[in-house]
């Protein structure tokens, strides 16, 4: 689904200073940030620790108050409670009520929205199935692993089928499988026309799912644009073929020379570690008995 032109988030000259007890400024977390997030896009906020990513998310949610500047979310000021009907938020750590179990957690958050008991039940079962916690739904969250807590955290963020989803370090604490699931889910949300804003310092994750990104450094916006446009190198071309013989490579080189171009590098493409890991797990599921066998060393057994 393509992104629309309607702005879901509008940030204008947003600054945030942290102050001490006496009101003295200690840190400027954000400095004159201006950006828009459009409906239906997956937007990534990037930056090293302390760059202002999470502060920006919290200002959008009304958890922090701006020192100056304006924020509008879904057309409303950030402090407006009504707008939260259409927002889902996954915090960096899953700050949930540890004495509740998964069912109770989702039922509690569902009650905060205009959802009937039947709707809540249906949505709860659907989300628990989706995040893979069916077996653990009656266990208190204090008995959950970090990954499981992230999953239930995600489920609570989606309980209201939100139009805007804010994800703070969504893949943090997840194993590669969970991380892949999360990225698939973000793509699915995008396909459903939802707007997703995520902040992360895991660049590969952001590259995989985001349409646009903003890079922040020390509270200032340094880069803003489409991921494809920002990463594209227009001065070089990449040609991908089936395996070539040495002779064929020489012919290609000559052909390129005729057009004034030079061949810079010829190599076999490598897969990513993530792909290798996911393929191994998938194969293990298909063939449970198969194990790794160490290659025999020469002379062994003599």
């Amino acid at each position, binding site marked *: 689904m393509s992104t629309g032109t309607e702005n879901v988030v509008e940030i204008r000259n947003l600054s945030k200073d942290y102050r001490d007890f006496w009101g003295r400024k200690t840190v400027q977390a954000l400095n004159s940030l201006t950006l828009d997030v459009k409906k239906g896009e997956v937007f990534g906020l990037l930056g090293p620790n302390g760059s202002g990513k999470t502060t920006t998310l919290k200002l959008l949610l009304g958890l922090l108050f701006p020192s100056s500047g304006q924020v509008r979310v879904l057309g409303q000021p950030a402090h407006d409670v009504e707008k939260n009907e259409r927002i889902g*938020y996954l915090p960096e750590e899953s700050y949930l009520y540890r004495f509740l179990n998964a069912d109770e957690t989702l039922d509690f958050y569902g*009650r905060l929205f205009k959802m009937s008991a039947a709707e809540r039940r249906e949505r709860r079962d659907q989300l628990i199935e989706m995040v893979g916690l069916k077996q653990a739904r009656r266990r208190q969250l204090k008995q959950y692993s970090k990954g499981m807590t992230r999953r239930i955290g995600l489920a609570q963020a989606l309980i209201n089928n939100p139009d805007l989803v804010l994800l703070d370090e969504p893949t943090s604490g997840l194993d590669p499988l969970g991380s892949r699931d999360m990225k698939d889910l973000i793509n699915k949300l995008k396909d459903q026309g939802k707007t997703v804003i995520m902040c992360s310092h895991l660049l590969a994750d952001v590259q995989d799912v985001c349409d646009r990104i903003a890079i922040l450094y020390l509270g200032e916006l340094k880069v803003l644009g489409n991921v494809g446009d920002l990463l594209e190198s227009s001065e070089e071309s990449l040609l991908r073929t089936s395996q070539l013989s040495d002779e064929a490579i020489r012919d290609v080189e000559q052909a390129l020379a005729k057009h004034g171009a030079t061949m810079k590098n010829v190599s076999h493409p490598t897969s990513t570690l993530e792909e290798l890991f996911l393929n191994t797990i998938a194969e293990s599921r298909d063939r449970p008995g198969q194990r790794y066998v160490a290659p025999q060393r020469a002379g062994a057994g003599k």
Partner: protein
Amino acid sequence: MDFDDKGIGFPELLSGMGSWGVAVLILLGIVLVFAVPISMSYSGSRGPGRVAETLIRGFIDVLSQSFRRLFAIATLTFRESVRRKTLWVLAVFVVLFMFAHWFLGAGQATESAAKRHVMFVMSAVTWLLIPIAVILACWGLPNDIKERSLHTVVTKPARRAEIVFGRILGYSAVMTLVLLVMGLFGYIWLMRSVPDSAKNQLIARVPVYGELTFLDRQGVDQFKGINVGDIWDFRSFIEGNSNARAIYTFDRLDESALNSDDALPLEYNFEAFRSYKGTIGQNVRFSFHFVNKATGLDVQYPAGSAYIREYSPNPEDTTMAIPRVLTSKNSLISRVGFGEGATENVPEEVDLLKDMMVDGKLRVEVSCDDGAQYLGMARPDLFFRLPNRSFFVAYAKTFVGMWLMLILIVVLSTTASTFVKGPVATFLVATYLIMGRLLRGHLDELLTQFYKDGKPIGGGLLESAVRLTTQDNQLTPLASNGFNESIVVLDRGILRWLNAMSYIIPDFNKFDGAPYLANGFDVPAETRIVPALIITIGFFIPCLFVGTYSLMSRELEAK
């Protein structure tokens, strides 16, 4: 403690509402005095506008609460409390009761056995539950903020007012459950543990009190009797064998006060002051005179004198059933020649409720019949007894008062926890409790007895300190100089501050029905339950606003 404090009528309610309104306006003024400069320091000239906007938003927040969300937050709070093992207090309670007989001497039929048992149940419940209510409600919200679980709630469409109110409802539900269990357990324990011989003390008497005035030894009307030199001037005394009388006027008597024998039970608790030893083993004598001032009828009952019974724990010993119809056989009927229409005829019998009532009022005069002895009495020392109410109902009413007190504590604690952390909130509420329960009487005494017309009698706190150092008599005027004048001004400031404090510190004693129950009285709704309910509501409304504004105006992320 006496048991005749006046209930709340419509005029008191109106005046109370006026004071409440003034207190709320002063609170708003204090908030503005602090909020506007702070907001201006952050937002410059837009500061006052932001404060006004927050006030309006908070008002809308309080008025737009959703029952569904309130219920969700209340349920969450209830679950949180239960799963954090709050109900273990019931185990402590049971253990306490298992060993209670060791120190209560259960089974020994002493004179005050019932009172001791009742006070034990009430004290155990109160002092176990007050700390739990304070700790639960003071620490819940700050923990929620510290662990950031509140983030996942405030980023949903939950209003700040719903968070405060929902928490209050949840903690109140926990307290209600625990109180119910303790109440039932305590009642069963009382029924089983109070010795049979003392079970007749487990009653709920319903007194009808009259107004008290005096006649001195010449028979002249007086507001007070004689002071026999006792510092505690609760009781006034009348001299024996003289015209001195204590006059009680009852205006709430009708046929509903009659018992099954067609008699009016009249209970008396007089104190004797002896100017000589008298006869060993014989009490001071007195008699009742039912007087109709319009017809001049004076009916003495009993015909001979009765003896006072000091320190008797059994109310039945000091209760005299006065027959509705008094005849010349059981009383002395005479006519004193005052009043229009008085005739010389003395009737053979007199109906108390027909012949002795003047404008719906019955006048009972008490005389001391031993010369040179004195009889002391106060307003609650003589009362007619309506039919006893059920002890269980009186017991339940005491628990209703206690329940309201716990809810008020939850309200105050939750509100405090919206603007300070758990330990500070606990300290704040504990101070409030000590001021409102233990020191409240002292505060009221300071304001009513030691200050007259806005001026401290004999000097205020600072003036007294100066007089101590200069060894000046309290009656000597202070030397006129700038220092002393500023001391007087400061003393007036302290007085005003104390006066203001008396409005914002609830009188927790108004919730306490235990002394009534322990002393065998019904707990009157108009002096205990209704004021307690009004106080609770009176504090709940501003507290809800304060809590809402506090949560709205703070960054929940900031630690």
